[in-house]
């Protein structure tokens, strides 16, 4: 898998390169700012771009803007945005730029190498990866409407919003895949969402539901 990395801190950039190369991916460009990211995205057409939100010269949300711009110039380019802190409004902006192949994670999630690599690959394959912290923020504002769900169903809803597959949810909660499916159907029924068999469409329906004004 061909990856472009945009991260201004050398230590982290080199770390990410090693981590992904260890996982068998090919890092075709590792850049330090937004304009280099755009150039690399256009010339290399990578399978996925991993982008830090805070980049020079402003050190604000430069990376986020660059990622959205890259997605505009290279339609369908899968993007995983990393950030020192997560903000549900940024997640909404990213999803507005494109729902498939979009991820937004706390930078510190790289500590769990396996999970992180899995998230990169999921995004590259057109899936979604939302940080549990973003999902938590979204669930809080929906606390009124999801009060009708059981504790287990709420857990399933949260993991689903992160973009995890039924198998991943099952292993995280130590239940079988068919049990997960049962919970998912129940959640969709209670929230009045149209059921869908296709995994990513289901994730997006959940995210859209959570993002909607309560």
């Amino acid at each position: 898998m061909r990856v472009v990395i945009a991260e201004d801190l050398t230590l982290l950039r080199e770390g990410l390169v090693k981590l992904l190369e260890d996982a068998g991916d090919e890092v075709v460009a590792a850049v330090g700012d937004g304009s280099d990211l755009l150039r690399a995205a256009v010339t290399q057409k990578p399978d996925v771009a991993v982008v830090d939100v805070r980049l020079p010269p402003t050190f604000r949300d430069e990376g986020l803007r660059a990622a959205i711009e890259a997605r505009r110039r290279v339609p369908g380019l899968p993007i995983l945005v990393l950030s020192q802190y997560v903000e549900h409004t940024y997640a909404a902006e990213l999803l507005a730029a494109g729902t498939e192949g979009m991820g937004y994670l706390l930078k510190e999630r790289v500590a769990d190498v396996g999970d992180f690599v899995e998230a990169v690959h999921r995004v590259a394959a057109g899936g979604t990866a939302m940080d549990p912290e973003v999902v938590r923020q979204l669930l809080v504002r929906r606390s009124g409407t999801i009060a009708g769900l059981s504790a287990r169903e709420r857990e399933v809803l949260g993991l689903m919003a992160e973009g995890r597959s039924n198998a991943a949810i099952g292993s995280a909660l130590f239940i079988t895949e068919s049990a997960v499916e049962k919970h998912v159907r129940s959640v969709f029924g209670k929230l009045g969402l149209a059921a869908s068999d296709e995994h990513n469409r289901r994730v997006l329906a959940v995210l859209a539901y959570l993002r909607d004004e309560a």
Partner: protein
Amino acid sequence: MAPWRTPDRPTYRAAVQVIRFLTRAFAVATWRELGYLLAGGVTAAIAFGVVVAGTIVGTLCAILIIGLPVLIGVAYAFRAVADVERQRARILYDAPVERLYDEPRRGWIGRLRGLWSDPQTWRDFLWLILLSVIGFAFAVGAATLWGSVLYLLSLPLWWLAVPHSALPDLGNGWTVDTWSRVGFVFAGGVVGLVLTPWICAGLAHGEALLAKALLAPTRRSRLRARVDELTTTRAAAADVQADELRRIERDLHDGAQARLVAVAMELGRARDKLDTDPAAARALVDAAHEETKTALAELRELVSGMYPAILTDRGLDAALSSIAARCPVPVTLDVELGERLPPAVEVAAYFVVAESLTNMAKHSGATSGSVRIRRSRGALEIDVLDDGVGGADASAGSGLAGLRDRVAALDGTLSLSSPRGGPTTLHVEMPCAL
């Protein structure tokens, strides 16, 4: 029906002016002025009594140590009359004269010294003396003028009602005994009715001007009071900052720093066991890994409490939208700001709203709330309301007290109304420019 429009012609406007001039007697202002002057007569009498009695008693007591409390009492008596005088301005202007004295000092002697050295004490005294004279004179003058006007205007009625011989002598045997003289006197009354209000207006506003000159604080004392206030709020701001640094130091010391020590220790032990006991080494590395992740989460929490990153990135409006959306209580947000505010004001506004919403979610039991934030006349106004149970407390030690200090450091004010049973309203005002 066609709407009635004011003809916009100079002659019309001139006519209106003339009519206003002639009918001043029937304007509300006239009666307020008369009321002010007559009330001044009463306070003048009181002031005269207090000044005479106070001066005599004060002079006698000043010789004796035991007279100190009495002297203080005299000073406060002067102050009380001066306060009545400040309030008297409301008859004329709706607002009392501004009041500003030095903070009272401690102890009998200190208190007396404070009173003695406060220039306002002497300015009050001066006004009371002045008032004894002009207040009384003006009141008598106004009463006489109005009495005469009423008398002259009512003379024709008397002429009709009682036999001519009973009419008074208006000087040199000149009595109102013919119709032409009746008309003459009545005309005099009408002229008086037109002029008296203007004379009284002059007296009232002149008196009020003098009163204000002596009773309102001088520029100097205003500045001194401002310096005192700034000294206090600056100290509070420094305290807030010191507390904040202490909290951060403690959080780092007990949190991330301690965890990193543990991580280094576990990794060290793991290295030693790598060859002899790989399984134990692996367990230690696992523990160190977990420890690092916890440290990262703690650091993230700490950093976001120091300065909200979204504020730097996107400004106040976006930052507030984000916290409002994250609040479990549905909150309507109404932000009207225009250009960006100074960073210190933005941060304070952010923390005011963040803390209020946290309190709302934790304690109020509210089902809905609202946040309104806007600029008005160079100030930033924040209103936070909820329909909860009330009982919020802004006394020392609470998060709200910290907010109050933070706001005061920017020369702003915070007021909270939260009766038991609700609703809770919080109002903050801060100057936009620093």
